[in-house]
């Protein structure tokens, strides 16, 4: 879908990513996850020393936004935690801000060096690709822009899998300090295991810290999981249900759609289409006709009447929607089912009725058009025509 380029996924918070790190044997700093200032206080009281208190948020740039603090005793920890919890962090990447709901308290390690390592999917190569650079702790995109030869890459053959030479080669190619070398091949192997076993779109450690006492530790954790693979790990799928990262995703899942089948935008024309491509094409057609889409909604293949009705209600629950364009080209989706759903949806008393334009063709279109005709709807012939009419209706209703 359009809004989650390159592919939809479930982003994990740092503390969740580190949970997975520990499952596969990647060293992480010692510490505790806390949702209250008292929890932070108690932990530091029981474990005297210097601690880092890190806000658990999805946004980038949390350090610059003041989301990371340092505490040397329990009282200080409590004070800082109280400050952070409930605070809304804002950064350039995220001007709206994100509220801090939980914290990660971690040992303050003595840093000798910071590296960067990630594995992501190269769609074109159909392979996992590993990126490593000795310039950790900073934005890797900047490294890529100003110093591209500092980034070492390796495409792993999924048939052969990971072998330690890959880690060795990358460590040498990226000129990682010697202290990394012994630990790195096994650590990257564990990261690859996580990537494949848990179906990650991205696993990233930035920085991967070499401490002055010679340990190699994942100081941060960024993990984005392919939602198509989540069924293999019901415990992790549960994390997402508890705190959905994205309201649109949650709304889509709630009515039985895929989590990337719905997204809200700023326009006034509501859209329901079958297929992501037709959905995007419909948005384009709305813009060509001088309007703006209020949303993207793909009912997917083979949708039944009940889903169409729920989708109608979801789209119209956005008060910005002034008109609706339902654009169906039946393949695996059958026109009669869609028509039935439309009729049922609009028949209900509990729905907000907006001017509706329907375009229905393809598989079982005749049957569908008959059902619509019986309910008093006259479908349009083409997408361009439907888009134009929907834009006119939305603007007329404004």
């Amino acid at each position: 879908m359009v809004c989650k380029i390159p592919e939809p996924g479930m982003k994990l918070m740092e503390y969740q990513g580190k949970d997975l790190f520990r499952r596969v044997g990647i060293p992480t700093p010692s510490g505790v996850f806390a949702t209250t200032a008292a929890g932070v206080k108690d932990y530091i009281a029981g474990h005297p020393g210097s601690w880092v208190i890190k806000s658990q948020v999805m946004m980038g740039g949390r350090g610059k936004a003041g989301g990371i603090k340092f505490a040397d005793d329990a009282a200080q920890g409590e004070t800082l935690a109280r400050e952070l919890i409930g605070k809304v962090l804002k950064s350039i990447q995220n001007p709206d801000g994100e509220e801090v709901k939980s914290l990660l308290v971690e040992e303050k390690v003595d840093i000798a060096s910071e590296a960067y390592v990630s594995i992501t999917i190269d769609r074109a190569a159909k392979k996992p690709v590993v990126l490593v650079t000795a310039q950790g702790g900073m934005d890797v995109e900047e490294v890529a822009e100003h110093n591209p030869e500092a980034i070492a890459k390796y495409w792993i053959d999924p048939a052969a899998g990971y072998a330690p030479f890959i880690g060795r080669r990358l460590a040498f190619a990226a000129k990682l300090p010697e202290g990394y070398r012994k630990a790195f091949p096994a650590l990257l192997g564990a990261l690859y295991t996580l990537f494949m076993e848990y179906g990650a779109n991205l696993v990233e450690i930035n920085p991967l810290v070499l401490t002055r006492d010679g340990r190699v530790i994942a100081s941060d954790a960024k993990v984005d999981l392919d939602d198509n693979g989540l069924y293999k790990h019901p415990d992790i799928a549960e994390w997402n249900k508890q705190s959905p990262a994205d309201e649109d995703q949650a709304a889509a899942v709630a009515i039985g759609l895929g989590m990337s089948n719905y997204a809200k935008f700023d326009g006034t024309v509501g859209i329901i289409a079958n297929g992501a491509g037709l959905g995007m094409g419909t948005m384009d057609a709305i813009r060509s006709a001088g309007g703006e889409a209020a949303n993207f909604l793909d009912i997917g293949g083979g949708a039944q009447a009940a889903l169409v009705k729920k989708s109608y209600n979801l789209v119209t629950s956005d008060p910005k929607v002034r008109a609706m364009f339902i654009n169906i080209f039946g393949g695996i989706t059958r026109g009669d089912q869609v028509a039935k759903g439309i009729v049922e949806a609009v028949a209900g008393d509990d729905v907000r009725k907006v001017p509706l334009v329907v375009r229905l063709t393809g598989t079982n279109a005749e049957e569908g058009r008959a059902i619509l005709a019986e309910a008093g709807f006259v479908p349009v012939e083409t997408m361009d025509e439907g888009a134009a009419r929907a834009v006119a209706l939305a603007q007329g209703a404004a």
Partner: protein
Amino acid sequence: MSIFLDKNSKVIVQGITGREGAFHTARMLAYGTKIVGGVTPGKGGTTIESGQPVFDTVKDAVDSTGATHSIVFVPPAAGADALWEAHDAGIQLAVCITEGIPAHDMMRVCATTAGMRIIGGNCPGLISPGKSLVGIMPGHVFLEGNIGMISRSGTLTYEIVDGLTRAGLGQSTCVGIGGDPIIGTTFVDCLRAFASDPETHVVVVSGEIGGSDEEDAAAFIAEHLPDKPVVAFIGGRSAPKGKRLGHAGAIISGNTGTPESKVRAFAAAGVPVADRPSQIPELVAARLAKR
């Protein structure tokens, strides 16, 4: 001529007795596809209403029928397994309708099924109009002819083909390559096949924002298809710029996957890009006239 599929291709249906499998088997048979049987474990030895035999395994089906093509209708969790089974049984081309097979399963499938062409997953399939349909496309929209078509999206394909057919521009083969992150056959694979098909006169490439397939296709066209006119469309150009997936994504390909970069790439390859699907027939007609 056509690519990947002709009227003699023997096809089996994996998941033939399931809801979608049964529905589309009937439609494909009605279109004239040579469906020689299907597979549903535990239903081996029975037949479907129209008389085609059902087998327990793909191997049994291939051994009994000599099938070379397969179409897969199974749940996502069984998708990779179905493709491995097809490969193992000697299937040459498998169309994977199933949507949402985990990307990591598909990476492994693609790396371990050398010799078998996979179309999809999450694709509407393959049609050589007037000859055979292996997919879920509405056959009546298509018309036999000389336009090749490749598309990432299913329903957008129908939209575009509908326009071509209404304009009297028939198609040699239409391939829906599928919308999942990892797919078996890319634009470039299809372009390569169309390049050596003398009866495909113009190729329509219908892409989307995101990824770098379109840019790769443009580069391939510029280098290898000097004599085969191509027309393109990019869906989703009006979409608000989405959040990026972490940092690493864009660095690999050096490619942003934005509509601008795709349009630019096609333009550099001499490929006109339609603003709307409805403009495609005239662009195609113009290219045909120049031949």
